[in-house]
């Protein structure tokens, strides 16, 4: 966010200002606010938002059809990762898993070539949606 000292309420971290620790952790909330797990659950399932269910099966969503299996089953993910690691994965999966991963990076700007006009210069999820989905993931422990 160019050249401004922001008031606490608006302290949203811009995509290119997210600080990674050892490539695998993002310690601070992107919004300075805690995420809302109920909304994060929506983000996980919604095809126009995270569409995480396209690749990750999730027992907590057994009411929904068509869970994908391109990625690992998400059950118990909070027992495998710290919240800071989950945030890092969602923000920029490539930092964590390497450049070959198929998983999109949900909060970075330099994605693939030829983005459609309506998505140019935009992240897939907003900072708050990232926090919400991370908050939701932290509820999925074994």
């Amino acid at each position: 966010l160019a050249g401004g000292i922001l008031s606490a309420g608006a302290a949203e971290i811009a995509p290119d200002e997210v600080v990674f620790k050892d490539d695998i952790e993002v310690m601070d909330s992107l919004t300075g606010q805690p995420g809302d797990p109920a909304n994060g659950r929506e983000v996980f399932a919604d095809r126009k938002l995270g569409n995480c269910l396209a690749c990750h099966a999730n027992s907590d969503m057994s009411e929904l059809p068509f869970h994908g299996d391109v990625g690992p089953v998400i059950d118990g993910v909070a027992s495998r990762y710290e919240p800071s690691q989950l945030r890092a994965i969602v923000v920029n999966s490539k930092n964590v898993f390497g450049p070959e991963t198929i998983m999109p990076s949900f909060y970075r700007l330099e994605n693939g070539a030829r983005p459609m006009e309506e998505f140019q210069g935009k992240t897939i999820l907003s900072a708050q949606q990232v926090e919400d989905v991370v908050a939701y993931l932290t509820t999925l422990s074994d």
Partner: protein
Amino acid sequence: LALSGAAAADPDDNKLIIDGEEIATDAAAPEGSPFDRLYSGWRFRTSETQDLQADDFENPGFAAITLGEELWDTVEGSEGKSCASCHGDVSEGMKGVRANMPKWSEAAGKPQTLENHINTCRTDRMGADAWKWESEEMLAMTALVGLQSRGMPTSVQTDGPMQEWWEKGKDLYYTRVGQLDMACANCHEANFGKMIRADHLSQGQINGFPVYRLKWGGLGSIHRRFKGCMENVRAEPFKRGSDEFIALELYVASRGEGLSVETPSVRN
């Protein structure tokens, strides 16, 4: 012990038999292929969708074949000719043609797809208007021409003047595009056999085109499918008939070298 999810979702073992004749839906992988074995998209569809393709009377793509046969004999343009005037019976004149597309054209100085060849005949030889890429007429004609190669193994030239185009197509195949940042290879090479939401990922082969897609409620061209896949990852697609899509078609065709032509195939 439980089977892994991926194994359970691999291509099935069903056989495609049309009118008592088996059409091979897998093939040995050509040299240099990233695959252990090649599979037609048919092997990844549900048995209900597979059955539609196994019976020409059930196959909804055959309505277009009827139209194609009419067009084949229709005189059009300033030269007073139909396709039949020069090529005779379609089953003889067009046998094997689909299996080797796209082909190098000396006159055009670039590879030509089936659509390109048909339009060259229309404009330069018949004095008629070109058909639009995705028009009912073009789809009917490419379906009719494709059917004359059904069961024949595909094979395209990739050397000589084609090489540069092949390289360009390969480049596009592995380039990540769109806001979702995926290349063709992420889905169709690294993850075929897996489920992406409701879709069972295939190798993205083009041996069945034009395909009748239940979702489209009609036939669609190879370039329409490429466009759709690019849009799904929020990328600005190339235009149908563009040099980029011609190069990509050539490259994808080479990845399916040896698979049988299935036109008109049925997909969901």
